[in-house]
């Protein structure tokens, strides 16, 4: 175990020296990788911010239920309120519902008077024409599809005249975000392939530079694992350096974008905010970049060693 660790540390040190000895190509590769990784990273952060807004919208969603046709024609106001309360209790038993608030006819009229500035005109009415209503608070974890289903259930209930819920624009927003996320995912996948190809190319150059060493090590009994090891470290370190550069680029870009975009969102009374990179995402970027570098080196070396050994067999 001690020798194994000693050997790995030695190879890691030698690989770092290998990178340091050619600062120009190391930095150029890191920059290319950084630019390639930063683009999907920034798109991901923007879509994450958009998702937090829709999440908040879902949390704030309320459904207004108006009671109407099911009630008797000339029912006393007290009885009518009782009827609405009973419907409210039925709604409360629906599992998707968190709470129901009853708003009496008198309260509805009062609110309308205040909001519409038609106070005098309403005072002249002989009786209150407005119905009582129920404000339904759905469970916070509901997604748009669940809310849509809940609205349908409420509209089909006996005694309910109409249900008011502005869901269309929310569904549209969620569809836009879903499309944006898909686009980000496709771009991230393409960039990942690009990263693998770039690192694979630098590893291939490294193999060419060290082909004599590889052949000697192979001749004196080096296993494929031993031959691969420095190149795996090389690919992984290249990936990590690309990831670090990507984080720096993304942090700078998001920092520059955050203020004007957040200000713009504020002008539209939107909760949309561009968030800066957190530790979780930053860590994930480094891990994924390192993994891509490792994979690139693994496949490139695998192909080279297989070819080298096949040529010995006259294939």
């Amino acid at each position, binding site marked *: 175990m001690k020798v194994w660790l000693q*050997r790995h540390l030695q190879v890691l040190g030698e690989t770092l020296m290998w990178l340091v000895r050619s600062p120009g190509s190391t930095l150029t590769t890191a920059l290319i990788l950084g630019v390639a990784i930063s683009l999907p990273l920034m798109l991901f952060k923007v879509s994450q911010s958009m998702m937090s807004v829709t999440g908040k919208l879902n949390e704030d969603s309320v459904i207004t239920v108006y009671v109407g046709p099911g009630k008797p024609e000339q029912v006393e106001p007290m009885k009518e309120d009782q009827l609405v309360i009973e419907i409210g209790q039925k709604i409360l038993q629906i599992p998707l519902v968190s709470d129901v608030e009853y708003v009496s006819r008198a309260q509805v009229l009062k609110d309308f008077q205040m909001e519409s500035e038609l106070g005098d005109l309403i005072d002249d009415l002989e009786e209150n024409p407005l119905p009582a209503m129920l404000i339904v608070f759905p469970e916070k974890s509901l997604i748009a599809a669940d809310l849509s289903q809940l609205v349908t259930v409420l509209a089909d209930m006996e005694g309910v005249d109409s249900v008011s819920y502005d869901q269309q624009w929310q569904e549209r927003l969620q569809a836009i975000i879903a499309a944006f996320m898909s686009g980000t995912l496709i771009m991230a996948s393409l960039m990942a392939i690009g990263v693998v190809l770039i690192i694979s190319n630098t590893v291939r150059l490294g193999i060419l530079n060290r082909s004599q060493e590889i052949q000697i*090590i192979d*001749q004196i*009994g*080096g296993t494929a694992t031993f031959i691969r090891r420095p190149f795996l470290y090389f690919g992984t370190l290249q990936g990590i350096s690309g990831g670090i550069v990507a984080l720096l680029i993304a942090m700078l870009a998001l920092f520059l974008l955050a203020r004007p975009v957040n200000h713009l969102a504020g002008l539209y009374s939107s909760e949309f905010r561009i968030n800066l990179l957190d530790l979780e995402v930053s860590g994930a970027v480094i891990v994924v970049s390192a993994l891509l570098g490792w994979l690139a080196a693994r496949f490139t070396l695998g192909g080279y060693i297989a070819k080298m050994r096949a040529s*010995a067999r006259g294939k």
Partner: protein
Amino acid sequence: MIEFKQVVKRYPGGLDALRHVSVFIPRGSITFLTGHSGAGKSTVLKLITLSEVATRGQVLVNDEDISLFRGDRIALHRRTIGSVFQDHKLLPDKTVEENVALPLVVAGMGNRDCARRARAALDKVGLLKLCRRFPQTLSAGEQQRVGIARAVVGRPDILLADEPTGNLDPELADEIMKLFFLFNQHDVTVIIATHDYRHLNNPAAGLLALENGQISGDSYS
């Protein structure tokens, strides 16, 4: 022991480097493998190290058909063989000591043991004082001796040398040959492919002569 049974080696393009070669090399022997350029000497050595694989026939080392070896088994087989090359094949960015220690590093030995044994091997070839130097600062004879030290540092069962004295003047060549005989005294099977006819008359050594890929002389048969 090493045995070739009806071995044919055909390279891509249809060139037959070896044609139905059957030889038996006893354990602990020292053997000169001779013949003109292109006779198949290097191919014999490459078949033993599995740098090449026989097209037909069998190559047996200690009664095992080595052509059946795959993957890491090939690497393990090579660790039992020390190889000396005409062009030394030393790594220029490693010191003499690091070059010599390489087979031990590859075999997974710890740094301290690697250094101790590399120095012992360099001492045997008379180059301990040059252990911190880089190969390109050494003469051709010194480089060859470093190559020999690297070949024997892992205490191999078999030592193969492909034209080890090809680029050396006669005095240096004699010195190198003495080293091979020295290692043979430690029960190492030594096979030397050479053009140098001055050494072939040594009665302590066996002789295998190759001509156009076939055995034309065999002192063991």
